[in-house]
């Protein structure tokens, strides 16, 4: 690929990415009344999307090969227990990640 071609490719990726971020705001500009269904979606989607993101970030975990998802499961359990108990975001995230790194590097 020439430099010009790679610049065009990157520009195309930027344009595609920005389209996904801007389109709701272009379709429903401020000042224009947001339809009730969209308002309703705006209220429930943040909860659904976080569930989607959790699944998305674990999508490549295979239960039937490799480490069978055991490091992920153990780290998730630690995060849930710690977080419900202490409600400290940094502690839960830090401890969960350190445990996961230890498991994938040293155990599995």
């Amino acid at each position, binding site marked *: *690929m020439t430099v010009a071609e*790679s610049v*065009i*490719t*990157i520009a*195309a*990726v*930027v*344009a*595609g*990415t*920005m*389209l*996904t*971020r*801007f*389109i*709701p*705001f272009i379709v*429903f500009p*401020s000042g224009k009344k*947001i339809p009730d*269904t*969209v*308002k*309703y*979606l*705006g209220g*429930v*989607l*943040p*909860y*659904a*999307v*976080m*569930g*989607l*993101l*959790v*699944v*998305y*970030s674990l*999508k*490549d975990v295979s239960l039937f090969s490799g480490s069978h998802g055991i490091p*992920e499961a153990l*780290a*998730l359990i630690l*995060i*849930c227990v710690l*977080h*419900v108990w202490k409600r400290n*975001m*940094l502690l*839960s*995230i830090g401890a969960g*990640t350190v445990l*996961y*790194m230890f*498991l*994938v590097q040293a155990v599995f």
Partner: protein
Amino acid sequence: MGVKTKALKAAFPYTVPILAGFLFLGISYGFLMSSKGFSIIYPIFMSLLIFAGSMEFVTVNLLLSAFNPVAAFIMAIMVNARHIFYGISMLEKFSGLGLKKLYLIFGMCDESFSINCSAGIPRGVDKGWFMFFVTALNHFYWVSGATIGAVLGSFITFDTSGIEFVLTALFVVIFIEQWIGTKTHTPALSGVILSLATLIVFGPDNFMIPAMIFIVVFFVAIRKKGES
């Protein structure tokens, strides 16, 4: 304390997990680019302008294959389609923020969105500047990571495998926070269940778009049912 300083001070603690995750992921991205023979200019500008982690890794492959900008454009839309949900969720929260709004939309990656949609912004802190600094700090961490990775190239090696789990951990913790903070769990549950179901049916590379469609259809249907 000025409005901006106050907002920056309130925003920073929320971004600390991202600081760790983005520095390491950004460094590995910079490493990857330099190992494929790209000049440092590439990772700097790509991390600055695309600011969507997974898509930047995909773009490395696009740049190494045959020239096809239309395919690159469509690929970017498919990979980042979930951002449409973020926009719908933030329509009201971003309104009336003037020029800041443009940057907030531009920089709405998974992590900025997660924090901005869920963080309880303390009383007396300006909402617009808080969200601005969350986004700008994340953006800064990501570009710094990519730059450091590209500069260091292969000079240093340390085992960071598994560090990407910090982002999973962030999403899980926010999920738990949201769960504790609300009485109706149908939205959260349907997000998990419909995503898992589509993941099983369509596989890890193709499930996002069907998952999003099913989630929207589901919510529109239960809302209709609630009205009648």
